């Protein structure tokens, strides 16, 4: 298994995903319509003998230029990056999702290709289109097209994400449509659309500040327009946020098994409330200044507004991620990538016996630490490191006292119950012996400060029970048994 022992595996995905959302919501979904709108205003406000107001058009072009460069580099690559990191950190879950959602993703891909082609055309033909009014109007139409496609891309992605939060009936009938039309889909989409518009407008405001000179007429005008754009969308975003906020817990309660889960969740949830209110008010105030007193607006205000909206997006994604625990795919697969339905088997046989890669299958006193390491890798390493972020020794010491030696028995009685108290963690998979090995390993970690390297540096050790030899023998054995049955019949 791939494992980043310092940074924490989840953190890797989260970082890339949040960066992607900040860029994509802001610079594609919400920004393209804004720029197109600006471009249109340029044509409308130009003097009768010119196609568009050149200075204004140049400003709009610069905005688009910035968005183009960022979305086609960092934006596109973080999108791919989510895949790459997920395939490293959580292969079983992304693999399952792809099998179920192949067509959704395939459609998404086609829309996405169209979007890229449109953005290339829109951006690259901008200057040429300024030669005639017809071309310019066509160009603007293209902009609106592009905006629609960006939105469809998001709508599809939200469907897929929504599914992961709430599997609806998927678990029983495994079909695509039931996955797509899950109960929080529409509220989420409703929320993301105006939010993206607000974010886009806010980024736009910042760029207008960067690309125009102080106290010029063009800045005042553009700032006013951006302010109007933001003000128009903010109430919608707020209403949608309230709706979403109200349906979220109902949907999540199904996933959270105990009261504490809801309490932990409530803490985050409260935080979310304040951040939403805080961020939206900042954005609102800045936008109002932009509309009514554009001259008073200062760069630092605009930057505050951008930071507020960015952190809002980041926290929002974080909460969405958090309430998904302990499952990666609700009620089907836990975040440690073990399927819920296989738990009884793991409880009976232990997890190591069925693991493809494990150095130990029969635990003895001598190989206990080694076995514990494998158990840790399979059951805890997706969320805990040995020494870095959310280190296993740190979380235990925080419970039992820093600097004190950890007690194996205490830990052993805590771990089988941990999912009940801390619902963000999946239950421990594995049998008694493995539990003993795990706590011995954790104790060993505390004593030695050892680190755990993932397969990307250490390589793998193949489980002797799961190599080609063993499996071939098993196949032969099964065949023989079947033959015997046939003979006795």
């Amino acid at each position: 298994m791939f494992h980043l022992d310092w940074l924490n595996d989840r953190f890797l995905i989260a970082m890339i995903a949040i960066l992607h959302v900040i860029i994509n919501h802001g610079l594609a979904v919400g920004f393209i319509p804004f720029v197109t709108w600006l471009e249109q205003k340029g044509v409308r406000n130009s003097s009768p003998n010119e196609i568009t107001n050149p200075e204004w058009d140049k400003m709009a072009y610069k905005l688009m230029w910035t968005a183009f460069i960022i979305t086609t580099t960092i934006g596109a690559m973080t999108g791919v990056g989510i895949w790459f990191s997920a395939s490293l950190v959580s292969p079983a879950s992304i693999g399952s999702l792809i099998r179920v959602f192949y067509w959704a993703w395939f459609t998404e891909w086609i829309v996405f290709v169209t979007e890229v082609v449109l953005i290339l055309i829109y951006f690259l033909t901008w200057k040429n289109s300024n030669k005639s009014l017809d071309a310019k109007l066509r160009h603007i139409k293209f902009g609106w097209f592009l905006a629609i496609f960006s939105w469809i891309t998001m709508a599809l992605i939200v469907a897929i994400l929504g599914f992961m939060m709430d599997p609806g009936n998927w678990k029983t009938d495994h079909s695509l449509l039931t996955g797509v039309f899950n109960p929080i889909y529409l509220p989420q989409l409703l929320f993301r659309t105006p939010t993206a518009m607000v974010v886009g407008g806010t980024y736009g405001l910042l760029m207008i500040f960067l690309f125009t000179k102080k106290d010029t007429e063009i800045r005042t005008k553009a700032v006013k327009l951006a302010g109007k754009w933001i003000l128009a969308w903010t109430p919608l975003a707020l209403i949608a946020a309230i709706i979403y906020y109200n349906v979220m817990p109902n949907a999540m309660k199904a996933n959270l098994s105990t009261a504490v889960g809801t309490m932990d969740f409530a803490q985050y949830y409260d935080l979310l409330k304040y951040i939403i209110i805080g961020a939206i008010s900042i954005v609102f105030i800045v936008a109002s200044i932009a509309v009514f007193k554009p001259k008073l607006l200062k760069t630092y205000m605009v930057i505050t507004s951008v930071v507020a909206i960015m952190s809002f997006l980041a926290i929002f994604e974080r909460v969405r991620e958090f309430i998904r625990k302990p499952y990666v795919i609700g009620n089907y697969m836990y975040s440690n990538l073990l399927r819920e339905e296989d738990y009884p088997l793991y409880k009976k046989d232990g997890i190591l016996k069925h693991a493809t890669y494990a150095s130990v299958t029969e635990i003895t006193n001598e190989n206990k630490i080694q076995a514990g390491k494998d158990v840790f890798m399979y059951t805890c390493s997706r969320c805990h490191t040995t020494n870095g972020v959310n280190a296993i020794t740190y979380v235990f010491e925080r419970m039992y006292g820093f600097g004190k030696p950890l007690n194996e028995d205490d830990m052993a009685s805590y771990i089988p119950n941990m999912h009940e108290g801390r619902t963000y963690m999946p239950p421990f998979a594995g049998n008694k012996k493995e539990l003993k090995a795990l706590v011995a390993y954790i104790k060993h970690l505390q004593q030695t400060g050892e680190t755990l390297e993932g397969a990307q540096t250490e390589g793998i050790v193949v489980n002797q029970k799961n190599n080609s030899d063993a499996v071939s023998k098993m196949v032969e054995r099964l065949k023989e048994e079947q033959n015997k049955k046939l003979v006795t019949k």
Partner: protein
Amino acid sequence: MLLQINTPIPKDIPLELPLPEWLLVTLLVVSFLLHIIFINLMLGGSIITLWAQIKGLKNKEYDIFAHEISKTITVNKSMAVVLGVAPLLSINTLYTIYFYSANALTGFAWIMIIPLVTIAFLLTYLHKYTWEKLEQSKKVHIAIMGLAVVIFLFIPLIFLTNVNLMMFPEKWGTIKGFMSALVLPNVFPRYFEFLGACLAVTGIFIVWYNNRKNYPFEETYKTFTRYDVKKIGYSIAIIGLGLQILFGIIVLFTLPAKGIGYDVIAVMTAAGSLLVIVLWWAYKAITNEQQHIDQHFKKIVFTMLAFMVLYGGSRQMYRHNALHKHQDLVAANTAEFQRLSKEARENPVEVKEELELDASLGELATGGAIFKQKCGACHKKDEKLVGPPMLEMVSIYKGKVDDLKNWIKAPGKKRPDFPQMPGFKDQLSDEELSELTKYILSIK
């Protein structure tokens, strides 16, 4: 010998493929073809831009040529990225465990693709938009492109290493990081074959690009004629094709035996012969009289496409041959695991373990055992552990059993320097709760 035996047999994801295998394979091969053409153009374009710009230091016309080619890179690279998603999706579905295993084994290099490609893309934009600004410091400008090319050259190596490693589960146990996977036979020959393809495809692309009627060639160049530039295109293609044929042969001979069959050899040879024919036409184009330079163009394009389909097909055949035995074992192992899992699900081992009753506690024994099992990890008799000591509980709840029960079911947050206590609403029956509280309140 030991290594031979130690081939891992992972278990597959127990979900059906979303569409028939042949269709997935077709989608994989076709979408990959589209993707790779743009990759070829992106990489080939960057290399040629760099080369032309350096040549342009002496001959200004080459500088213009470089500028023209560089404008196409950023477009082709955007297409290359989006078009890459579909084959990625298909290979994920079709070869799930193989692909992921290879990814994990070369993890750092694999994830480095993201920042590296991002940087390279930003560099190409920087290069494109500073062409006029850096007119005076050409060397710096060329260095930007140089850096981008170096990164671009490295990325395919990571991909090739992965798709190569994926085909050899028997090697997985011996791999320690990217470097050891890189040196598996066949990675480098395929890499150079690929570079040849980049030059060949881009060469032909240059011919097409400069042949377009609406391309304002005459306004762009001063002394170069369309013929000159097309000739450069063909010459580049010839070099590329030569590399491709040479390394193609090496690939064929270094291919590990396990996936080779007469079918693979036949298809690869057929594909190779097509390349030889293309090479001949390209050679004709530059040696013929000027007006005949376009004579074979269409044939060249179609034959190259045919080559790509055949070559992609042969790679897929090889992959199939190399893996199908292993895939059968994986399927068997997965089925057996599912059977065992089902069996275990239907006959669960008693999860509620026997409480360890302590006879000396008499009628409090049940409560004592529950406490030990559920609460002991956090509470001790007279010492603070995670939560407050039991004696403290007793002092708070003496005579208030119901309050105690409520707390246990849904604890509040009281002590600011303590963590949150978990609730036990769903895990304790009323009866157990009574036994438990009876025990707690008996502590002195």
